[in-house]
């Protein structure tokens, strides 16, 4: 029984939070939005803190649910990300009439992701995946009066359903071939055969949909653009991070014996994902769309790292996602602030932004630098470790393509910086008031972006709990 509590701690706390929010909802009439937000943010802080305490290792429910140090770290990263998103969304949520529903949906998708990360069985994985996806589609619709928002939700639910279908087909074939769905048994029964490669492609397509790797990326830009900024940042950071965590560990453990089969698939996907993401990002004027395509390109880089399939590969992926959480949320934080206060989301609106909002400009700039992989930000280390891990396989063509793609991506990141710092505007966005919670969120992001790189103990810890394909 003790095991149950210590192993499922993250999930149990989230469930309790969900219940608390539900109770708050019942007594909502008496309290205003701002005090509710304060309570919820406090609870989320507690949730983050509790996540770090007393983590156990073990299995529950006959191996359906696993827990270990790696998974705990992954969940903690997501917890921190959700806290930052919640703090950033304050300005937007303050006036929203369905505040508590927002948090209920948010927490339940997070719960789904936790189950997905901890899953030790394909069924459990699928369950977690669906629990995380369906509330997310509802969240995408949360700008209730905007048509684009409902369009985004619709697109999301359709494409998710489609990808789930493919995934389920793959899972059923797996069961037919091996007679089991548990990861532990599967890893012993999988072998290289044409049918198994086909099954892998089906499962990989399901994953690729969620992490928006090309050619399964088509929903990304529209959904990102239509959703409220808070949901967009959730989609691009938390949702993507969770699926990447699962993908790496499943690939390296369950599919380890098929490494020769999936290596070329991964390389090709990585290259086209980087190139397509970058080329489309070049010409975007809406910042949310721009970040959508840039996040597609980032997935390409991550796939390059994964293709290294060694211990450094897994470490670099977790490390990169951690950095990506901070840098992408830093960028989204500024954009969500501007969007909530002025409704402006286009690149040209940011002309002369530095004149009026120097600090916010620097935050956005440093975040973009980190995304582009420019030192001394942590993104530099994150990206180069990915490439280093990928180069371990000796495939230098792949690495050269990736390195040159970093240069392309630099162009569009610098374009935003150029607009803010160098272009003149007679009517720039006026000086924006930054609330305390938004300040804390941005400060957290900046601290993460700077420290995650220099504090090498962090990387060493991640390395020590990672594993590679044997």
């Amino acid at each position, binding site marked *: 029984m003790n095991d149950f509590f210590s192993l499922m701690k993250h999930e149990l706390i989230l469930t309790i939070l969900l219940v608390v929010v539900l109770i708050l909802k019942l007594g909502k009439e008496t309290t205003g939005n701002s005090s509710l937000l304060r309570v919820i943010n406090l609870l989320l802080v507690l949730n983050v803190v509790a996540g770090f305490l007393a983590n156990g290792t073990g299995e529950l429910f006959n191996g359906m649910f696993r827990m270990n140090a790696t998974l705990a770290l992954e969940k903690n990263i997501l917890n921190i990300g959700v806290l930052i998103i919640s703090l950033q969304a304050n300005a937007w949520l303050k006036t929203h009439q369905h505040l508590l529903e927002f948090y209920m949906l948010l927490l339940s998708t997070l719960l789904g992701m936790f189950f997905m990360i901890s899953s030790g069985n394909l069924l459990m994985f699928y369950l977690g995946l669906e629990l995380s996806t369906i509330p997310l589609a509802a969240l995408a619709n949360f700008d209730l009066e905007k048509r684009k928002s409902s369009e985004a939700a619709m697109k999301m639910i359709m494409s998710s359903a489609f990808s789930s279908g493919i995934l389920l087909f793959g899972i059923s074939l797996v069961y037919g071939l091996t007679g089991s769905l548990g990861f532990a048994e599967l890893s012993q029964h999988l072998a290289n055969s044409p049918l198994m490669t086909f099954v892998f492609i089906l499962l990989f397509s399901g994953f690729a949909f969620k992490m928006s790797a090309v050619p399964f990326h088509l929903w990304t830009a529209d959904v990102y653009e239509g959703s409220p900024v808070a949901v967009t940042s959730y989609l691009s950071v938390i949702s993507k991070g969770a699926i990447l965590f699962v993908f790496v560990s499943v690939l390296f453990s369950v599919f380890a014996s098929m490494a020769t089969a999936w290596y070329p698939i991964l390389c090709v996907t990585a290259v086209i994902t980087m190139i397509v993401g970058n080329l489309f990002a070049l010409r975007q004027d809406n910042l949310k769309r721009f970040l959508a395509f840039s996040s597609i390109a980032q997935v390409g880089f991550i796939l390059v790292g994964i293709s290294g399939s060694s211990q450094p590969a897994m470490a670099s992926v977790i490390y990169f996602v951690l950095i990506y959480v901070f840098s992408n949320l830093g960028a989204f934080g500024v954009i969500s602030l501007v969007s909530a206060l002025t409704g402006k989301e286009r690149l040209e609106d940011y002309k002369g932004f530095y004149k009026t909002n120097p600090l916010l400009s620097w935050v956005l700039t440093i975040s973009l630098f980190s995304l582009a992989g420019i030192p001394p930000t942590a993104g530099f280390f994150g990206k180069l470790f990915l490439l280093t891990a990928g180069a371990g396989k000796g495939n*230098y063509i792949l690495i050269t393509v990736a*390195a040159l793609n970093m*240069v392309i991506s630099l162009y569009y990141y610098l374009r935003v910086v150029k607009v803010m710092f160098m272009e003149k505007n007679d009517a720039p966005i006026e000086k924006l008031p930054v609330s305390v919670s938004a300040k804390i969120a941005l400060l957290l992001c900046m601290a993460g972006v700077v420290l995650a790189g220099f504090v*090498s103990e962090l990387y*060493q810890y991640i390395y020590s709990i990672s594993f590679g394909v044997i």
Partner: protein
Amino acid sequence: MNLSLLVLFPVLTALAILFCKGLRQVRAIALAGSAIQLLLAVVLLYFYWAERAAGNMSQMLFQFRHSWFAPLGIEYYIGVDGISVSMILLTAFVVMAGILVSWKMETLSNEFFFLLVFLSAGAYGFFISLDLFTMFFFLEVAVIPKFLLIGIWGSGRKEYSAMKLALMLMGGSALIFVGVLGVYFNSNMGDGSHTFDLLRLSELQIPIESQRLFFPLAFLGFGIFGALFPFHTWVPDGHSSAPTAASMFLAGISMKLGGYGCLRVATYLMPQAAQEYSTIIIVLASIAILYGAFATMMQTDLKYINAYSSVSHCGFVLLGIGMLTKTAIAGAVMQMVSHGLMTALFFAAIGMIYDRTHTRLVSQLGGLLKMMPFIGTVFFIAGLCSLGLPGFSGFVAEMTVFMGSWQHPEQFYRIATIVACASIVVTAVYILRATGKAIMGPVVDDKHLHLPDASWNEKMAAVILITGIVAIGVAPFWLNDLVTPGAEAIMNKVLTAGY
């Protein structure tokens, strides 16, 4: 001596600048910081000599290592030899002068000085690193501040130039990184682990097939920084659009990162490939020298004149590296120092002229020596140094490169040397023409008659740089003796690895 101070001080200065209020405080802090840097560099030189005099013959002095990312074998590993010391001195001189000429930078002064000082931290770190990853880290630190410096405070087509520079240099670093990774994964430490440690890598034999693959990547990457033809195109645009201090940093320091990297990373770690590719390097360098010189003849803008002449002068650096003799490599390093000082002085003078006359076109300038004798003289000295007049550093450095090149008896090398020598005549033409028109000649614009001469800070900047130039020009042997052991170490690698 603790070398980390060289990086730590600029970083602290940069951080202090962020908290300053008003131009006065900012520039006071920046000047104090750069003065300390210069002092540190001179002290470093002194200690270096003292160590050597005491008989310490290890290749790198003042080594310090601290494990950084242990699982990947990344260390913060620093140390200097004579080549690094001379580069550090150059950086310190140029930074101090650059800050002095930006004395009246009123727009966004905090940010401007922050970026300048931050950039210098990257350069110092690069020159002291003995770990390839750390080195690459510092190299990239020194890139992006330039984008902002040019884009925000520049003139003309500044945004285009800034973007072009950033993308080309980042393209260069992308190639460098692939080259570095190639070297890394070919370093078999015996237990399956790899290392970025420069000295240990130089002891391990990298297979010749890998050298053939990764030498071009690394050399080309660093070559882009060092204006290797045909990837020099960022130089004219970048220099001419940049504000004065940024031009000085760009030509005086940044381009030297490339030359230093070509030498220390590409040639030193992959000596066999360096020999195999030396023909191509020499051809490209000769083209750059000659093409740069002729392109300069066609320019009418003073900054473009100096920018194209930088392409030509940096060609000598690459020529010296390509020649692969001890003397030529020593000459290449001396040329880096000399060109760094000279071109910084040139850009400083051009900046001073532009601040007063608001034009950089030779045709609109004339007789400046009458109104501004000091600035005119500075310009003249820079010009004379550029065309290689004995007594200034340019002569010493270029002469050494030629001597080293001539040591090869084969016809190909002789021709390349003669071509390079011939370019000096062209240099004389464009320098004397520009100087004769703008500095000597008749006064063109009556409005120029009442322009003031250099202020104290500008005088100081010029004096600092001229001191360096003359110190090398009149007494070249201290610098020669400083860099020769370093060049010898590299040449030994080439010779022992050779056929």
